[in-house]
């Protein structure tokens, strides 16, 4: 749900990073936070366990500059990927404008990736959203690890609707901004679409 404030000339959009536990969602946000100029970012909030697993969400507000005189602000959230946190995942999807799915490229995590996409589909539906329609980007993370699943195989298994798809190494930042940029663009195009009817 985009929030357009004509009084302040601001538009606010919400992007949610989704995916299986330990896939690298928090690492994506951390990298974005580290590489963004001070004046363009707010504080990053992480509600995490002692072991640095996301417990409720991470949050990072980003100012991307102006479009048509409107300050464009993106609120980035991650969900907790661990299966048993489903209730929290649902809450965070509320009012989402776009989703990034962070898949783990390791063979052993393929089932978890598939299950997490199905879970995303279901949880979106509960909020009245449709994964087929919502701005969506896919990221194959951890490409630096040895013996990862080949790209075309992952693509066949995980690509949902020919969404923009990126290889990434979130720890060093490879593909991180490309993924964010892709979903942000889709959101703005959606806004244009709904404005022109």
């Amino acid at each position, binding site marked *: *749900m*985009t*929030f*357009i*404030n*004509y*009084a*302040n000339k601001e538009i*606010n959009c*919400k992007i949610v990073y989704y995916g299986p536990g330990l896939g690298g969602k928090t690492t994506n946000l951390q990298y974005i936070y580290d590489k963004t*100029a001070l004046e363009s970012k*707010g*504080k990053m*909030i992480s*509600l995490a366990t002692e072991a640095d697993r996301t417990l*409720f*969400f991470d*949050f990072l*507000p980003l100012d*991307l*500059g102006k*479009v*048509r*005189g*409107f300050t*464009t602000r993106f*609120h980035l959230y991650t969900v907790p990927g661990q299966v048993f946190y489903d*209730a*929290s995942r*649902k*809450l*965070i999807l*509320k*009012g989402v404008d776009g989703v990034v799915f962070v898949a783990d490229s390791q063979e052993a995590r393929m089932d978890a990736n598939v299950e997490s996409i199905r879970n995303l589909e279901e949880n979106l539906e509960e*909020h*009245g*959203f449709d994964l087929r329609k919502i701005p969506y980007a896919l990221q194959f993370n951890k490409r630096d690890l040895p013996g990862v699943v080949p790209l075309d195989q992952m693509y066949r298994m995980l690509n949902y609707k020919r969404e923009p798809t990126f290889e990434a190494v979130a720890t060093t930042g490879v593909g991180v*901004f490309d993924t964010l*940029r892709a979903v*942000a*663009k889709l959101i*703005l*195009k959606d*806004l*244009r679409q*709904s*404005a*022109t*009817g």
Partner: protein
Amino acid sequence: MSTDLVIYQEEYKTLEDVLRRLRVDSNARAIFLIDKNGQQIAAAGEIDQFDTTSLASLTAGNVAATDGLAKLIGEREFSVLFHEGQQDHIHISIVGKRAILLVIFDDRSSLGLVRLRVKRASGEMEAVFEQMANRATEAEAAASSASPFAEITDEDIDALFSE
């Protein structure tokens, strides 16, 4: 799907006026109106003292978690949350269907006073939200023809990421 929240100058001013009055009447330090998705709508008082973006996001998370708890035990919602600190206290309440009112106050005020004043102000704000909702359904077409986003070009979008 929930429709976008669009707020115009006049409504914004009305809401700010209500917040400002509430802040004086309740002797509070600061007051924030936040939408349930965690975005700040308006604020009044010592707002420079706080990280307002974080405040909005965490408040919304807090309300969302509490809403989840309410549903689990068969309640529709818990309409008020109160957190008591050493010096500062937080009063959180729901306004209408999609907004949250956050009042930060210290011992110059009291929970009773805040609660009383919040109740009255909420009524006024709900009226504004209702007006916004009606406008959204009635004049959606008219409003959107004036939307700045109808004119967005691919270049505009690319420019956002140019640095």
